[in-house]
């Protein structure tokens, strides 16, 4: 039986296979270790880090929706310093690519984190989450305006030589415009999508279910929107894409690769099926073998033509 080449090269980042776990859904790589060895994955992305520790939003932070969920965790995280002191050393032993997701509310926040996260460590890339409200520009998210999206990436770029992944928000009129902007700003890779803004109301209290009123929609419900955005960005922008949004099984992962994703990231599916990322690695390999592809990368973008 011929071996399928699952290795994946994303700009400067080399992965064993194209399956990554998504920021905010995989902790700091420890919670799912009792289920399987994370070293079997292409990579993991840690929870979004901010310069200072954050308590995040009050509960309830979770609401269920048809084939999906809302979260309003509010970027709870231990902060940059504690991450460097406690979590990073433990991640050194994880045996797979580590992507650090960084979130900020000002350009200085991004600059600080980019310059503080070591280039010679287990960190393979920084994923720049541009979905946070930009407090310097009136609270609209960095990622919803092409100019501020570009600026964030530019500033971050200046402060690190690590490969930069720009993570785009889907809550925009024109995702291609934003993708071009972050490409212009010097991003090496584009990851999409972050969560769609949504809400639910509790019939008993007659108030929003989430303490924070609105939250981010993720899971299978958003898959068609995510896939469409990957398809559009692949057509228009010449950077490798990490596709995510509702991927639950290898079939979904194949759809994203056909649409143009070079790698896929698994988020909410972890909650429902902790083994999903592993099963997707195996499913992709099996699919390539059955369909006669020698390398997984042959799939990328095949739906275009």
């Amino acid at each position, binding site marked *: 039986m011929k071996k399928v080449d699952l290795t994946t090269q994303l700009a400067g980042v080399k992965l064993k296979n194209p399956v990554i776990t998504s920021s905010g859904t995989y902790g700091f790589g420890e919670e799912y270790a009792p289920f399987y060895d994370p070293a079997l994955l292409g990579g993991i992305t840690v*929870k979004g880090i901010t310069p200072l520790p954050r308590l995040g939003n009050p509960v309830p932070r979770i609401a269920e929706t048809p084939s999906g969920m809302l979260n309003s965790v509010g970027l709870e995280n231990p902060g940059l310093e504690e991450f460097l002191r406690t979590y990073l050393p433990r991640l050194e032993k994880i045996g797979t690519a580590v992507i650090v997701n960084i979130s900020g509310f000002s350009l200085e926040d991004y600059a600080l984190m980019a310059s503080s996260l070591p280039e010679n460590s287990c960190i393979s890339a920084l994923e720049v989450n541009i979905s946070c409200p930009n407090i310097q520009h009136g609270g609209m998210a960095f990622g919803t305006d092409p100019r501020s999206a570009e600026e964030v990436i530019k500033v971050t770029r200046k402060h690190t030589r690590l490969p930069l992944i720009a993570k785009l928000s889907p809550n925009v009129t024109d995702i291609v415009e934003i993708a071009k902007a972050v490409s212009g700003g010097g991003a090496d890779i584009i990851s999409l999508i972050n969560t769609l803004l949504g809400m639910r109301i509790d019939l008993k209290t007659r108030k929003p279910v989430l303490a924070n009123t609105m939250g981010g929609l993720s899971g299978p419900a958003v898959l068609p929107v995510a896939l469409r955005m990957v398809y559009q960005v692949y057509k228009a922008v010449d950077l490798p894409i990490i596709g995510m949004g509702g991927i639950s099984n290898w079939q979904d992962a194949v759809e994203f690769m056909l649409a143009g994703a070079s790698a896929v990231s698994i988020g909410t599916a972890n909650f429902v099926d*902790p083994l999903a990322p592993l099963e997707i690695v195996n499913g992709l390999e099996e699919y390539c073998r059955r369909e006669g592809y020698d390398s997984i990368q042959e799939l990328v973008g095949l739906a275009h033509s």
Partner: protein
Amino acid sequence: MIKNEKVIENRVLDPGAGIFKLVLRGQTAKTARPGQFVHLKVSSTMDPFLRRPISIAGINRQLGEITLFYRVVGRGTSELTRVKENQTLNLIGPLGNGFTVPRQGKLLLLAGGIGIFPLFSLIEALDTSKVKVKLLWGAENRQFLEAAGLKTLLEKNLDYEVSTLDGSMGHKGLITDLLEYYLQAFNNPSEKESSILAWSAAACGPKAMLQAVTTICRQEGLPIEVSLEERMACGVGACLGCVCTVREASGSLVRKRVCKDGPVFDGGEVVWDEES
């Protein structure tokens, strides 16, 4: 940690209250501790989407069986009622830290409504020849108490007292009334219960009740463990969906994950009315 367990029994105990008993055979029973929970996949499709956390109410290591009790309140628990005997059910577990199981001394159990369920496994685990147990249980009415396992308590010959909102059984009123009455009794050296210092408490129920009983116990110097509930997504500590706030010895506030760092916490540390 994730496995399919065989459904031995899935049966309604009381159609009125919508309370079901679910017995599962598999590996979970081997290592489960009182106060832990399992995270159940209630549907084979994407809807309902999330797993549902249910406390482990009984652990039978010989048979390799755990017993759960659940109340039907929404779509997830409704789906669960459709699972048939001899089918398998996918679960993650056992999860969480569980209650401290004292080897000696006196344990006051405080249950509000279905908060009784995790306490069942704690009662089961206690060596009642060495630990004196008293249970106070508050609920809406007699029907609920009977539906939710009062008979089990009688069979166990447990020292208990109940309160109901409508007075259909036991004290008419809240469990806090009972609690205050008994704490006074414990404090009174002429009573046979003797000194309050030998007592600790373990509680499970609605948040407001847990806050109230914690306040009372703390006033009397009684250490109390509370089992919290929160909406959960992952159940394993990865999503930060289910946090509560705890005041550390240093005075600083930290978030704890109910699923992973709990569900059982030192009641005295929990910040109840936090708004940040």
